[in-house]
């Protein structure tokens, strides 16, 4: 039977694009279906209305809401629609997906993250599991991402540094803000080991891409105007298209993955820009729509043999949804504490702080408890978006600020010092009360059930988050920052998503096998962050990229190896 394409990839972000590029390079035909538009580097600007105030890169929540379940004080669950709320669980609906809008703080997982259960034992109330692969299995792919996506940085040894197969990053570190060396000095005095944070941002040009324009903290939430940021779009998909064997079809929202009575996939059905239903088929199907949307697609793709949804005989699709646990903090370095020259350099916030601490990636502190998993602390500038920064000053203790007093507050916030932030990442432990399901009554504008997302968290997330954030605060105080605060929260960060289709050896306890293939469907793969049984204590993007390259290599082998020699 002839198929339209060798491989159909659903979703064009960090999970889908490595597959598209690898397969197209190997000589296979690839179709990438993306529900959003194809925006190009020329369409991205530092425009606060576009990125942050009008949410242009996300679907309208009035048409396509999520139903969010939050825990109330009595252990029950309160459901609220995101249609008219401050919550937004959409991320980057355009070619390249959310990778267009990441900050690009790149950390690898560490060997210990692959065997959390065997290393630390079970945690009551959490579904902790070992991964079916090891760090050594993924290491070559982390390395491949460094060159393919473009990662800049400098390797510095520290107690929890993971092993690596190359001595250093392919791109030198980005220009650093003076706070970086202040943190280095403070860390040394405190006996800690700050190290340069690697970034998926080019420090020198690469083919088709310019180097960084140094907007400081603007990277997160905004698209890159120089293509320095390693989005899946500029770093991978554009190269895939250039092979002539990869077609990217924007404005193509996949409605169903279709299966026949024997349980074989017969094609996918998608809604095109004009609202028409179209069908396409392929030898292999790869789903990579980000954790919530991937679960939603599989759950709604019921068929004669899959009444509970595709790949869901175990009932685990949508379960063990991971956000990222952790804490946060902030402080301000007041210019008045420094000489004129120093103050002028501090006020130049275009350069990056790029410092992190992983001294407590594993916490061995008897006052805190038994040896346990900790996490990562990143030091960053407060996002420079001026409207959002100003809007945070509009209220003090429930009373609105206005008039001349408000204007003096704004002057102090914007002009008298540099605002610094701590971002602490720890595992969002997989728990029964963090999951995605289909809402039984609410439909989106396409007539499809909307996702219902329960956002329960394990108290351990909070404990570790507080611990790490306090260490970060100690560093900020040590460099002379004022107004230092730190805290942890159980609120889910909606841009850091994984889980919902965990991989493993046992079909009863996992959705995907070791190759991220559905246990019960021979030609269905999932390559976004959904495969992760535990999330580690770093942002997910590098791991998603790396794993997708790993699966892509498996697919090339499965399809018969590289055809390039024969082309």
């Amino acid at each position, binding site marked *: 039977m002839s198929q339209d394409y060798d491989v159909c990839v659903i979703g064009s972000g960090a999970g889908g694009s490595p597959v598209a590029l690898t397969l197209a390079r190997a000589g296979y035909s690839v179709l990438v279906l993306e529900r959003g538009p194809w925006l190009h580097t020329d369409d991205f600007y530092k425009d*606060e*209305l576009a990125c942050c105030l009008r949410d242009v890169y996300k679907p309208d929540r009035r048409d396509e809401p999520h139903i969010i379940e939050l825990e109330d004080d009595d252990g029950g669950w309160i459901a609220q629609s995101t249609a008219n709320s401050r919550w937004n669980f959409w991320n980057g609906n355009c070619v390249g997906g959310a990778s267009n809008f990441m900050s690009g703080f790149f950390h690898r997982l560490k060997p210990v993250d692959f065997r959390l259960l065997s290393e630390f034992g079970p945690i009551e109330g959490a579904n902790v599991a070992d991964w079916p692969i090891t760090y050594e299995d993924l290491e070559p792919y982390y390395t491949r991402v460094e060159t393919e996506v473009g990662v800049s940085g400098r390797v510095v040894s520290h107690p929890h540094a993971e092993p690596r197969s190359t001595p250093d990053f392919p791109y030198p570190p980005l220009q650093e803000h003076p706070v970086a060396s202040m943190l280095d000095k403070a860390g040394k005095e405190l006996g800690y080991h700050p190290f340069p944070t690697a970034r998926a941002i080019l420090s020198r040009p690469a083919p088709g891409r310019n180097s960084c324009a140094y907007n400081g903290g603007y990277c997160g939430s905004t698209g890159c105007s120089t293509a320095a940021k390693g989005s899946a779009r500029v770093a991978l998909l554009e190269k895939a298209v250039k092979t002539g064997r990869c077609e990217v079809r924007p404005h193509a929202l996949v409605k169903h993955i279709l299966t026949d009575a024997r349980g074989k996939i017969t094609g996918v059905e998608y809604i095109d820009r004009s609202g028409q239903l179209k069908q396409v088929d392929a030898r292999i199907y790869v789903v990579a729509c980000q954790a919530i949307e991937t679960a939603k697609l599989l759950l709604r793709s019921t068929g004669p043999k899959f009444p509970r949804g595709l790949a869901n005989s175990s009932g685990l699709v949508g379960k063990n949804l991971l956000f990222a646990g952790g804490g946060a903090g902030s402080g301000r370095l007041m210019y008045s504490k420094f000489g004129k020259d120093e103050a002028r350099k501090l006020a130049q916030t275009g350069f990056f702080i790029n410092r992190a601490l992983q001294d407590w990636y594993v916490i061995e502190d008897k006052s805190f408890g038994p040896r346990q998993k900790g996490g990562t602390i990143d030091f960053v500038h407060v996002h420079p978006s001026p409207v959002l920064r*100003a809007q945070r000053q509009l209220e003090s203790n429930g009373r609105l600020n206005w*008039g001349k007093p408000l204007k003096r507050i704004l002057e102090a916030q914007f*002009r008298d010092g540099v605002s610094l932030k701590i971002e602490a990442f720890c595992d969002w432990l997989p728990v029964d009360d963090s999951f995605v399901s289909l809402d039984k009554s609410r439909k989106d504008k396409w007539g499809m059930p909307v996702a219902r997302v329960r956002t329960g968290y394990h108290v351990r997330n909070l404990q570790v988050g507080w611990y790490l954030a306090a260490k970060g605060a100690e560093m900020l105080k040590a460099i002379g920052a004022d107004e230092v605060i730190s805290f942890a929260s159980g609120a889910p960060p909606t841009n850091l998503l994984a889980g919902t289709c965990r991989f493993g050896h046992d079909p009863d306890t996992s959705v995907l096998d070791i190759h991220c293939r559905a246990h019960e469907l021979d030609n269905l793969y999932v390559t976004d962050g959904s495969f992760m049984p535990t999330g580690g204590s770093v942002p997910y993007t590098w791991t998603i990229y790396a794993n997708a390259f790993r699966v892509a290599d498996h697919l090339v082998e499965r399809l018969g190896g590289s055809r390039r020699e024969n082309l």
Partner: protein
Amino acid sequence: MKRRRFLRWSMGSLLLGSAGLVEARAWVPDFSAIRLDVTGLDAAQWALITSVQEHLFPSEPHAPGAKDVNAAQWLQWVLSDPSVEDTERQFFRQGAEALARLSQKEHHKVFLSLNTGEKEDLLRKYEAEAGGHAWLRELLNYIMEALLTDPVYGGNPGQVGWQWLKHRPGYKRPPADKRYFLL
């Protein structure tokens, strides 16, 4: 589609099409095209809102105020967007009506004729009322937008807000033909 309609409105008489887009690059914000009838509020209500905005964010010799950053026109522009729900227009209209009633009740005068001290007392009283706090907060939110968004949208004229707060815009800034509703 809604945004496309919005574009046609906000570009005044410019027509869509390739020639239109070339002209759009040189587009300067023109708030004179705003029609108050589509904002859901009448001229008297806008006069009241303008007066409240100027009290919430007064002009000073060294620092711009609401009127210097086109705050009233900004909010009119926002509420003229066809994709904005009517409940949003109602929210601002009902808030203005409630404040007007409170002014009559407390002072037997319209808000505009109150002196600065009376306005302050009345707005603090209004802040304590159900709905008053949220309404004033929204007005302030939109004043911050008019003050600090890219001048290509019509607020922050000549970067007056950015200059006052020494804010450096990121690279690149949006040109007129890449404003968010054109993407």
